[in-house]
């Protein structure tokens, strides 16, 4: 048959590779900054944009969507044309995809630092950016499927299934979790409230880990590990089982982020069961990756690329073993809200995503520039430094998690809590320092790589496109040998797409149907009322400053938590919380029942200088809340939006809302005056105090006379 000539573009893979490394450095730099902030609060610089609560979302979003995201696109734009023997479908779409994504990243960083956040972890970006992400994702999808449909290789290699499944699942997750009602140009409220919001969020959050950080990188592994080792994957059969069972199981496991919370027991058990089953496909994938190197272990000793891949895949195995363990309720009781989760995530992010990316870069850049790697020795040094950095990061965090757990649950013989929260924070600070040093060392390794790769690029010359030729696909295809059902799917990408969507949607449907039923099944607590306008404004400040990054609002039913924070949280208490603010980590104490615990003046002084009220605190100062006037022009639209979402504010309450707001603000200002604090009732801090003083109080008043809030 006549061979067709075509040329494969190297420009976009190069762009994506540069973006990967650039955003990697930026994201890790933000990570190092926030790590040191936890130990030395002075590094918060007393400015809004540089406080922990705002920088942490920049770090997480940058690493996930900018670093790993661009890593995924590098792998896809490089491997897809080569696996399919065709050029990428459209250069224009490719360019829109590239620049669109980078623009989104910049917009994300700017808006997050400016305090525009939806308040849902790893989905913090506000609605205009959510829409932009959807559009760019669709462009990427068209480009990918266009390429697949115009291919010259009949069968889709396993890496491509992973890419397809990732694309379709991320689209589904992003859309479902981003349902929100905008009330201004950059702000919106989540469509879901409380328990429901939490379920959707962690269904998203967990599967973002699965389908953004894991499956595309498995695709990367299935392409680049065989390439670097120059031998085929260990077992192609295993890869089929690996693929289908992994995507089937992953989607069910989300609720394991909500063990011991207000989630129904059976859903927690279901998530636990599926999480444990996940070990099998995950380890199938890990072993498939490692065994690909069988008989080539001598090469691993010399080749830094293979070293990165081996440790990367091993870290994948470790964290996918750890994940199921963390889903056991008794283990989760220790790990949840602690630094253990943070360590677990970083084994995955630094070890798996980081090292796989570095391995890919060391392999790819010399090929794009038709040269040899500038220095193998430097790459090996990077490998050693990186591995050491991961260990120095993770071990102190594990240690700190157990240590703080034992301190939290320690009681005196008289039955009192032995340690104050602040005691535990203070003993954790040395571990924070070690972790920050570990992260810095990891980043130094990355800088070595940057130097090495720039030198490599300089000594070579960029190959803009590679010419190749292949025979076109024939219309009539008769499979050779025995018919194999899976080859049918591999020949029909759309079928693969639909099947993948079916498999992942199944878990989603099973999880979300009960979620939506919950709304009508939550016993309403009569004394739980909507927030007053001032409290609502205060809550939005709480979200804006990213308080949820360190404070939870979910007291678990343990003796040591109930004694420390108060009555455990009830699902019915969160019915007006758009979005929920349960949090996932306690660097500071739980706030679910902070209301009424301290006088207004305490909060005033504490927000101005936390150490004045809690010596040894690592919380940042919030001086700007005392300078800025509360923007009450938004009250009207906020109340209106909340009513639309089902919060029972009276019809026409908007017109009276600001009058109520001012009355309540005056009361708080007067209360502060009694404590000899002079401040205008117009300042933002007043609203925040109103919200803090409200939290968790509703059910305290259950036995008392219920006072109307409106």
């Amino acid at each position, binding site marked *: 048959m006549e061979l067709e000539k075509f040329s494969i573009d190297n420009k976009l893979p190069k762009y994506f590779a540069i973006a990967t490394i650039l955003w990697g450095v930026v994201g890790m730099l933000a990570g190092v900054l926030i790590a040191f902030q936890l130990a030395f609060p002075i590094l918060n610089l007393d400015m809004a944009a540089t406080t922990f609560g705002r920088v942490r979302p920049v770090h997480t979003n940058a690493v996930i969507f900018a670093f790993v995201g661009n890593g995924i696109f590098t792998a896809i734009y490089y491997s897809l044309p080569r*696996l399919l023997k065709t050029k990428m479908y459209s250069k224009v779409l490719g360019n829109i995809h590239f620049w669109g994504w980078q623009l989104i990243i910049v917009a994300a960083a700017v808006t997050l630092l400016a305090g525009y956040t939806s308040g849902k972890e790893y989905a913090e970006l506000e609605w205009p950016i959510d829409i932009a992400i959807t559009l760019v994702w669709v462009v990427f999808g068209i480009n990918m499927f266009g390429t697949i449909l115009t291919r010259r290789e009949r069968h889709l290699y396993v890496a491509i299934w992973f890419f397809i499944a990732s694309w379709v699942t991320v689209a589904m997750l992003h859309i479902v979790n981003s349902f929100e009602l905008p009330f201004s140009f950059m702000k919106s409220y989540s469509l879901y409230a409380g328990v429901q919001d939490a379920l959707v969020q962690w269904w998203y959050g967990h599967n973002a880990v699965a389908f953004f950080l894991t499956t595309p990188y498995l695709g990367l592994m299935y392409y680049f590990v065989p390439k670097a080792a120059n*031998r*085929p994957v260990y077992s192609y059969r295993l890869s089929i*089982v690996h693929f289908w069972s992994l995507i089937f199981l992953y989607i069910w496991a989300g609720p394991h982020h909500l063990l011991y919370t207000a*989630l129904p027991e059976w859903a927690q058990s279901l998530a636990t069961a599926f999480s444990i089953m996940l070990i099998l496909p995950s380890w199938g994938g890990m072993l498939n990756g490692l065994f690909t190197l069988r008989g080539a272990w001598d090469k691993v000793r010399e080749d830094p690329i293979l070293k990165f891949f081996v440790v990367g895949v091993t870290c994948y195995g470790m964290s996918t073993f750890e994940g199921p363990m963390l889903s056991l309720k008794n283990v989760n009781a220790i790990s949840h809200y602690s630094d253990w989760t943070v360590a677990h995530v970083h084994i995955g992010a630094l070890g798996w995503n980081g090292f796989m990316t570095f391995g890919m870069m060391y392999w790819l850049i010399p090929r794009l520039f038709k040269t040899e790697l500038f220095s193998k020795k430097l790459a090996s040094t990077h490998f050693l430094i990186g591995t050491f950095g991961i260990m120095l990061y993770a071990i102190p965090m594990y240690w700190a998690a157990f240590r703080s757990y034992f301190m939290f649950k320690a009681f005196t013989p008289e039955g009192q809590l032995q340690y104050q929260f602040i005691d535990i924070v203070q003993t954790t600070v040395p571990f924070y320092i070690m972790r920050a040093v570990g992260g810095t060392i990891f980043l130094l390794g990355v800088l070595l790589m940057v130097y090495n790769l720039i030198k490599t690029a300089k000594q070579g010359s960029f190959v803009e496109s590679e010419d190749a030729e292949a025979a076109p696909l024939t219309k009539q295809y008769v499979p*050779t040998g025995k018919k194999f059902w899976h080859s049918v799917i591999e020949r029909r990408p759309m079928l693969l797409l639909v099947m993948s969507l079916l498999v992942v949607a199944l878990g989603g449907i099973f999880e979300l149907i009960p979620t939506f*039923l919950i709304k009508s099944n939550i016993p309403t607590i009569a004394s739980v009322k909507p927030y007053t306008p001032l409290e609502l404004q205060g809550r939005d400040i709480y979200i804006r400053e990213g308080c949820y990054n360190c404070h939870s609002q979910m007291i678990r039913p343990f003796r040591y938590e109930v004694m420390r924070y108060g009555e455990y949280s009830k699902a019915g208490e969160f019915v007006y919380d758009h979005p929920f603010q349960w949090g996932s980590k306690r660097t500071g104490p739980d706030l679910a029942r902070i209301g009424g615990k301290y006088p207004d003046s305490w909060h005033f002084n504490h927000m101005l200088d936390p150490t004045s009220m809690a010596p040894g605190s690592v919380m940042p100062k919030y001086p700007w809340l005392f300078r800025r006037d509360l923007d009450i022009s938004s009250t009207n639209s906020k109340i209106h939006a909340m009513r639309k979402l089902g919060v029972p504010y009276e019809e026409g309450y908007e017109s009276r809302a600001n009058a109520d707001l001012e009355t309540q603000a005056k009361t708080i200002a007067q209360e502060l005056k009694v404590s000899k604090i002079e401040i205008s009732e117009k300042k933002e801090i007043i609203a925040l105090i109103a919200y803090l003083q409200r939290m968790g109080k509703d059910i305290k008043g259950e036995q008392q006379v219920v006072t109307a809030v409106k």
Partner: protein
Amino acid sequence: MKFINYLENITGVGVYPLTSLLLFVAFFVLVTIWVIRADNGFIDHMKNIPLDNNTEH
């Protein structure tokens, strides 16, 4: 008020976890059987796609 058992009132809620488990087991068994019966030549072809040393398809 116990806060972890809201869904117990939904009739037959146990059907969710049971169905999901059965679905997965059935799915897994089918995939495994089919994979074991797969043609060796095909598997070899697939394996070698990234290494560009295959010709037929």
